[in-house]
């Protein structure tokens, strides 16, 4: 009697600990999602059959790679343009600040899809340029720019006035201040929000299909119209985006924790 009751207690103890454990809860949550996917897949009119992908691997890979290429370009573009915009908002010139302000409002008010279309089909042609991908990509860059500018603002603000006073008092030269104190701090703090915006860009880049750029969304659509394997295409498309963005967000969280200075 005594033995069995203590054994029972032990069992309960371990079960409760397992239920509380993070790993287990993740396994449950992810299984739920996979279960849902399976349910959805099984409910399609024609059974899902991934072997229909055969022969189209390189097309889809091309889309996958192009998505990453345009996203990386847009990331760096908006990192640079965002910094310029940040400098404008900090400028002594009222005109520059107002320009930054007005542009920000206009960009905030524009859906990304509209921004891409306007850039590629309206503004580009106004400059006699029909290089749609360049204009559309600029559209994404411009769309993200105010968000990047905000990132810079909050990061630079987090270096306190007293820290600057301390640097002055010790007699750091301007170059030394940036090189040893400001930039090393700023870089750490910029990284996680940059990565978050990168994820936004990757997701937004799917909209480039409206200008027939051969990114992931577009190449999968091509595959679908050629094979009529619509369900397979959508499922694959979804999984491929998640395969990039979820690890990216995990990495972001890791970097955030690892580099936190708070």
């Amino acid at each position, binding site marked *: 009697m005594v033995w069995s009751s203590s054994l029972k207690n032990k069992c309960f103890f371990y079960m409760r600990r397992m239920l509380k454990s993070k790993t287990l809860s993740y396994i449950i949550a992810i299984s739920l999602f996979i279960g849902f996917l399976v349910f959805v897949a099984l409910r399609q009119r024609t059974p899902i059959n991934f072997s229909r992908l055969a022969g189209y691997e390189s097309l889809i890979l091309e889309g996958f790679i192009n998505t990453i290429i345009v996203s990386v370009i847009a990331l760096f573009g908006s990192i640079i343009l965002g910094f310029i915009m940040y400098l404008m908002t900090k400028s002594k010139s009222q005109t520059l600040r107002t320009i930054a302000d007005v542009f920000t409002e206009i960009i905030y008010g524009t859906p990304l899809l509209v921004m891409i279309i306007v850039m590629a089909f309206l503004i580009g042609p106004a400059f006699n340029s029909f290089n749609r991908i360049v204009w559309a990509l600029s559209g994404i860059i411009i769309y993200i720019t105010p968000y990047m500018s905000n990132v810079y603002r909050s990061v630079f603000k987090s270096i306190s006035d*007293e*820290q600057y*006073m*301390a640097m002055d*008092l*010790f*007699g*750091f030269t301007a170059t030394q201040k940036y090189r040893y*104190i400001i930039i090393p701090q700023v870089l750490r703090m910029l990284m996680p929000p940059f990565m978050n915006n990168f994820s936004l860009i990757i997701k937004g880049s799917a909209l480039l299909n409206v200008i027939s750029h051969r990114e992931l969304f577009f190449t999968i659509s091509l595959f679908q119209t050629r094979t009529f394997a619509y369900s397979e295409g959508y499922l694959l498309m979804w999984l491929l985006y998640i395969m990039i963005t979820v690890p990216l967000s995990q990495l972001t969280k890791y970097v955030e924790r690892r580099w936190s*200075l708070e």
Partner: protein
Amino acid sequence: MNIKIKNLTHAYDVNVLDDLHLDLDGYHAIGIIGISGSGKSTLLRILAGIEKPNQGTVEINGQFADDKHYKQNIGFVFQSHTLFPHLTLLENITIVLEKTRGIDKQTAKKTAIENLTRLGLDDQKDKRPNKVSGGQAQRASIARALSVNPDILFLDEPTSSLDPILTDEVLSSVEKLKGLGKDFIFVTHVISFVKDFADYVLYMDQGVIAEQGTPDMLDNPKTDALKNFMNKVR
């Protein structure tokens, strides 16, 4: 130390310091007290040469506060610690010594450890500021300020962001610095610390020095303002 303040006036929107005069010699620890907004921090920053006054002059030990080399002889500890958050406590000190004083790595490290040890932080030296307590961070700020070997150490309410236990911890470390042969000018709300540590006290009220003298003046205040203040802080 020898302090001469002449016609010191400073305004932001209104006058914060109003025509101050002071001529003191031979004191080593000057405590500044007064209610919030009376101009203590402003006075301290001007004395340290961090801020330029609108009018008047400050001269300490024969050197004017607007002198190029003035700040080299000064250490300043702010209300909240100003350690550089991406560097360890040790690196916070060595970077200052190496980059701004041109001291070589080994010597810088030795000096840094010496000063951290003096403030009881030798076992914390490789931690970042976010990994130590507020009191330890503030003591590290003091160690950093000391490590450039200043003649005068300024402290502006170094404990106002700390709880009572950490306050005690920091203030008793400061008291132990008495033997270093340095001079101190400090602002604090902790009256017992003023009585223990200061050898001269300035009581500020609305931008003027309303009463001054040795710390025993706190037990027998002459002006009503200081009387009220002492009743409040008790």
